[in-house]
Structures are given as C-alpha cells and as structure tokens.
C-alpha cells in the first residue's frame, strides 16, 4: 500500500545543508499497522511530512497504492501531534470533522452520517456541538482521529499523536487506535518516540537511527493480536522486544559521529 524507497531529505537553510533523512526504505502492506520509532530529533516528523506529500523529497520516492506521491494524496489522512493546533477553533466539533468531507464534495446527508459514525467510533457521540477548546486534550485528539476516520482514508499517518496527553488517556487512546485499526482495516503508519507504545501497537516496528537517519531495523512484533494494557505489557515477550528495540536505539545514539 505504502512504498518508501531510498527517501532522502536535505534542508537548505542559510547556506547550510542539513541532512534530515539519509536513506529510508520501508513498505507497509495494505491493512498493516507499522510503528516507526527513533531517537528524538531523528527526523520522524520530516519522514511523515514527506510521506504525506506536505514536503518535497530531495531524492527517492514515495508511492501510495502504486501512485507516486507528489502532493497531499487522496485517500491519505494525517493525525498531528499538536491536536490543539490541528482543529479549527472557530468550528464546532461536528463541522471540524465534516470539513474534509465538504472539500470532497459529499452531500449533506452523507456528511452528517459519516460525522456521527466517526464521533461514535471515538466514543464522543455527543460532542458534535461543542467547540474543540471546550474539550480536554485527549478528547480533542479523539476529534482529530474522528476527522481522519470520517475521511475514510486508505492510509492513516499518525505523528506522535499522544505525546502531549497524560499517561492514562494515552493508554486509552492506544487501545482506541488498535480497535479502530481492527474495525476499519485501514493501513496505519504510527510514528512515535515511545518504544513501549511502538511495540504495544505495531505488527512491525521500524527503528530509525539518529540523524542522518536511516532504517536500522525492521522488526516483526510476534505478540498475539489481542492486546491488553495489563497482560501484554507484562508479557515476557513484550519485555524482550522492547528491551531489544531500546538497545538498538541506544546503540545508534552512542554511535553518533561527533561533529
């Protein structure tokens, strides 16, 4: 579904070139959930923006269902980390969710049906009339997820979506993502700096090096499909996997060339 090959991104700023991504190659099959994890500052957000067509790549290519991505692609939705800044504060929740559908040209009846379904799917069936700023951070991120769901994307990109919410909310939202992935069958690429979160959520975990960034490992997560915050996280295999990923990231950090 999603093919990223030899992706390289160099920023040109004030006469100095900064190589954010050196060589990223990874594929995500249809209906798969893949987590990308890496040390902070390794260009995870840059990678996601390149895949989302928000940022031109320097070289290499990104393909969505076989079609090269040259700009924001149809059938792809992004959930950003900054929920407070990705929702329109002047629109009610329902209008926020409906806006991409209006851009798609859907009829009003169909829009309101999709909005109601999406809000119900994120457990906010009655929040349609509220404004985003009247909701808690976790609820706002649910609205952002509902907006992405209502758009009915084939590929959903999530950029550290739960980095700014408290631990309990975060656990709830992680389970919500797994549930929605199951029910919708969407292809999901989830970027995070949290190793536990990556292992808990993913079928695969792609480990990135520190900058200049490349893929150091593409690890299959052989945990049972039914995941649960308590039993999965205490599963010896879970502990083994997260320790492995942690060690890989630590190694790339210490191997960082001094410059």
């Amino acid at each position, binding site marked *: 579904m999603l093919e990223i090959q030899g992706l390289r991104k160099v920023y040109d700023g004030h006469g100095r070139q900064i190589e954010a991504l050196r060589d990223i190659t990874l594929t995500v099959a249809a209906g798969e959930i893949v987590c990308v994890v890496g040390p902070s500052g390794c260009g995870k957000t840059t990678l996601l923006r390149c895949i989302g067509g928000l940022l031109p790549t320097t070289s290499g290519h990104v393909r969505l269902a076989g079609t090269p991505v040259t700009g924001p692609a149809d059938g792809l939705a*992004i959930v950003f980390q900054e929920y407070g800044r990705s929702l329109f504060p002047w629109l009610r929740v329902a209008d926020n969710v409906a806006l991409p559908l209006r*851009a798609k040209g859907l009829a009003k009846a169909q829009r309101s049906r999709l909005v109601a379904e999406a809000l119900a799917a994120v457990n906010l069936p009655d929040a349609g009339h509220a404004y985003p*700023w009247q909701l808690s951070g976790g609820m706002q991120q649910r609205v952002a997820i509902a907006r992405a769901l209502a758009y009915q994307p084939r590929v959903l990109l999530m950029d550290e979506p739960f980095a700014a919410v408290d631990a309990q909310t975060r656990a709830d939202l992680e389970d919500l993502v797994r549930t929605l992935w199951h029910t919708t069958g969407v292809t999901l690429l989830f970027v995070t700096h949290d190793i536990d979160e990556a292992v808990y959520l993913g079928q695969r975990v792609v480990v990135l090096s520190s900058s200049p960034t490349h893929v150091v490992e593409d690890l299959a997560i052989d945990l049972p499909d039914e995941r649960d915050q308590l039993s999965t996280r205490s599963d010896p295999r879970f502990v083994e996997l997260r320790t492995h990923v942690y060690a890989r990231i630590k190694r790339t950090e210490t191997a960082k060339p001094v410059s």
Partner: protein
Amino acid sequence: MRRAVGRVALALGLPVVLLVVWWFASAGSQSFYEPPLSRIVAAFPHTWTWARIRGDIAPSVIRLLIGYGLALLLGVAIGVAVGASRWLRSLTEPILEFLRAIPPPVLVPILILISGLGDRTKVLVITVGGIWPILLNTVEGVRGVDEVLADSCRSYRIHGWLRLRTLLLPAASPQIVVGARQALSISIIMMVIGELLGTTNGLGYTVIEFQRGFQIPEMWSGVFVLGLLGVVLTAIFGLLERRVLRWYHAVRAVERSRP
C-alpha cells in the same frame, strides 16, 4: 449584574467629572470663543433639529459607512491575496509601505482634482484613508496562519473558496479586527476632512459653517456631536467584534486558565 453596573459607572465616571469641572470652570466665561458650557448645551435643541439630522448627519454617516465598507472590502480582499502569496508580497511590499507612509489628508486635493467635488470623492477620501491599517493587518494575519492548521487543510485537500472561508479569513480575523478598529477612527477623521472642502452638507461642513458665521456655541455643539458619533460607532464595532471573535476570546481565556 452588579459588576456590569459597576463597569458602566466607571466608564461614565470620568466624562461626568470632566463635564462638571468644565461646567463650573466656564460658568463665568466672558470669552467669545470659549462660551460657558451651559450656552453650548442650550444651543443643542435649536441646532440639532430633525431637519439638520436628516440634512447633515445622515449624509455624513452614509458616506462614512460606504467609504469604510469599501475600505474593509478592498483591504481584506487585497490583504488576503498579498498575504497568501509570497511572490505577490515581495512584489507589493515596497509600494504598500510607500503608500501607507503618505498622510491621507494630503491625498484629498489630488482626489478632488481627479474625481471632482461630489459625494464620490468624499467616499473615496474615507476609503483611501481607512484602507491601509485593514490591508496591512490582513496581510500579517494571513501570513501568520498556524502551520499545523494550514498543513491539516493541505493534507485534507481543502482548497480555494472553502479554504478561504474556513481557514484564511477566520484565522486572520483577530488581526483584521485590529486593523478595522484603527480604520474606523481614521475614517471619521477623513469624513470630516473631506467635508471641509467644497461641500454643502455634512457634519464637518456644518461645524466649519458655524465657525465662519461666528456661531461659537453651535460650533462647539457640532464638535460634541462628532465625538458622540465616534463613541456610538465604536460601541457598535465592539458588539460586532465580540460576535466575530467569540472563539478567539474563548480560546485565550482557556489558555490563560491553563498553567
């Protein structure tokens, strides 16, 4: 309720005190040009008759509203176009800075030469004076649209008219309102200036006619009417602002209450 009463009392307190001071300080005045306030007040009923309201205040206010409305329309339209396009901004920035730096009253004789002495010129004078703060603030407002929100729009392929209505204009509205508020007071000034030259009606004209006819208390009463017009228009502006920027003030209040 009690707080509202308190606020009104505070707002009216100083003007009342000043009027009382003026009343007694000027009570024994023999000066022809500085008559006692009591005589100015006494001049009101026979000066501001219904005929004069219809014949002088109404034309002034209508010209003001048309001129100001045009400034608002053109300022926002040009401002959005310039703010949304980097090359247009680079192209027009020096010219805008130059035009803004010209004191608008200087343009009055030129406008009279070009467009004559009619109502059209008086409206143009108001528009030419009021457009700059609106235009420049709109440019800044559109330029300052939140990146995450703009990215959300791009990734959901929200373009054109829908983007203008749901992203650019609301996002820039706090800045546009700042410009519109400045423009309102400039417009009132320009309204009077436009009426000082070659007119036969209007508030500014009336005040000048009283001065030339040595009807000094009547002249002072005209100055009062101009001031009151400003107060009323500012109050109406405030009401509209509260409606348009309801979301903005609410978001600010939420942000202030969070640590």
